[in-house]
């Protein structure tokens, strides 16, 4: 059961000509990944809309199919059949390349995620680095989209998005560093393997250590900002810059953007699962009978749900708040987290390192948070009306 898909793939691969087997199996896994995550994307859009609807006290989509289950299908058909507008002043080539540049790296990033036991598409020796490297391409894509469509709003949105992504990439990577230090490898498989086993009933996940917890939270926040999710969705704020850098996109290209964003979200949360939540490992020893990929996707969906929840809950940040958060809070916090991981590593096992590390992390959190909030005015805004 656990190895079902692996065996299936091998069985299929045996049909190929002997010289072409590696390429064939690679194609197989690519197809599997694309299929899985594309359908997951469809599912997620539905979940998001319905969940938000519930949070905002309204029904979500409930017309197409049984209680709106077929809504994604309808959307897909609609976006495929819509007219594909290209602004007259647009820079055609760039305008056309932008969605592809966004989607392809996103899918590439999925390749290194171990979605189950022996179910990593390519196990690179420097997988995490690969992940961030291809993730970097999305910024170029955003710029291409925003700049090529010759629209002030989209250019502004692109600029905002790039500034935000560049700022939040730093804490994102830095918060992943402690895990790499602990595992001693950049390979995602090795990282998952390092979190195997259980201690006194709890799994050895990194999230269950002081630095791991801090890193996980930092990583989540940075991830939200990285894929422009609320509350960091300034670049796409409908109310401010009508949907930001893809204002001018419509039809299938728009769908591609949408897809790209969601795939990016999956990828980043999948990495979070891999780095901190023990990948496909079961949380408790007595639950290991469930197949590993089930655990992976369960955790993934849980994180997605968290994202949706946050989106439904928190208001949008201002630009200065965004930057302050990135540079004045998360960056120092992540740096200190690295140091704390080193401390953890060098002070041998025992309650002492628990105490010291949690004290350092907590103290830093208090100090930095206080410093961050010291200048900020968080009270209700004072409206001034014109007489």
């Amino acid at each position, binding site marked *: 059961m656990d190895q079902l898909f692996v065996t299936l793939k091998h069985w299929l691969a045996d049909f190929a000509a002997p010289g072409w087997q590696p390429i064939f199996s690679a194609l197989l896994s690519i197809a599997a990944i694309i299929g899985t995550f594309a359908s997951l994307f469809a599912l997620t859009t539905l979940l998001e809309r319905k969940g938000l609807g519930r949070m905002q006290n309204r029904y979500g989509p409930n017309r197409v199919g049984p209680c709106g289950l077929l809504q994604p299908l309808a959307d897909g058909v609609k976006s495929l059949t819509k007219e594909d507008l290209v602004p007259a002043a647009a820079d055609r080539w*760039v305008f056309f390349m932008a969605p592809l540049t966004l989607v392809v790296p996103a899918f590439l990033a999925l390749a290194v995620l171990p979605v189950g036991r022996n179910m990593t598409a390519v196990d*690179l*020796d*420097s997988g995490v*680095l*690969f992940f*961030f*490297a*291809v*993730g*970097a*391409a999305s*910024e*170029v894509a955003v*710029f*291409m989209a925003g*700049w090529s469509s010759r629209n002030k709003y989209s250019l502004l949105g692109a*600029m905002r998005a*790039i500034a935000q992504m*560049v700022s939040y*990439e730093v804490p994102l990577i830095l918060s992943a560093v402690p895990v790499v230090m602990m595992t*001693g*490898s*950049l390979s995602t498989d090795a990282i998952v393997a390092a979190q195997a086993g259980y201690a006194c009933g709890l799994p050895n996940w990194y999230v269950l250590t002081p630095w791991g917890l801090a890193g996980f939270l930092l990583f989540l926040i940075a991830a939200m900002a990285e894929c422009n999710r609320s509350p960091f969705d300034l670049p796409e704020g409908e109310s401010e810059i009508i949907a930001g850098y893809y204002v001018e996109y419509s039809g299938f290209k728009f769908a591609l953007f949408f897809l790209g964003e969601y795939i990016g979200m999956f990828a980043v949360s999948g990495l979070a699962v891999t780095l901190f939540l023990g990948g496909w490992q079961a949380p408790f020893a007595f639950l290991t009978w469930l197949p590993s990929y089930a655990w992976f996707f369960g955790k993934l969906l849980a994180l997605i749900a968290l994202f949706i929840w946050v989106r439904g809950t928190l208001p949008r940040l201002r630009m200065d708040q965004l930057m302050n958060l990135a540079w004045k809070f998360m960056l120092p916090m992540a740096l200190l987290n690295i140091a704390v991981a080193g401390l953890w590593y060098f002070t041998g096992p025992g309650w002492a390192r628990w105490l010291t590390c949690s004290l350092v992390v907590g103290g830093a959190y208090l100090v930095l948070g206080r410093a961050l909030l010291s200048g900020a005015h968080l009270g209700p805004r004072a409206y001034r009306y014109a007489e």
Partner: protein
Amino acid sequence: MTFPALTFALLAAVILSAAAAVMMFRNLVHSALVLAVALSGLAALYLQLHAQFVGFAQLLVYVGAVAILIVFAILLTRGNEPSDQVIFSPGRWVGAGIALAVFGVLARVILTSRLLAGSAPPAPAAAVKEIGQRMMERYVLPLEVMGLLLTVALIGAVVLALRERPSG
């Protein structure tokens, strides 16, 4: 024509054409974008040469940072409209000639040297662990200097790009 040779030929074609495009395009933004293409091609070439880490680092640094930086610079210097005036500097032919001369010298060096005529040795392993250990043991001083340099560059860039004093 074997598989590596094929990939090499393709990548070389991509890289060279992209680089040439960088030089030729009127529109600076296009130049920047194709520069990103060329550099990603180089990264792929590194991968083919079994330098995985370097390849990904190249991708991360150049596509993720430098290209974006260049684009920002272009937009900040009003360079994003395709310039209607001539884009080449006076004495361009001299420059091109010199570039050609340099290439000629290099090519002659490469083609006439007898040291390079060796078949491919087995692919060396550049495990990330190895690189990290080397960096921490033997090359730790360069590493520190590098960190210092980057910090200085960061501060210097900020200071330079600050608004100019009215006195200056």
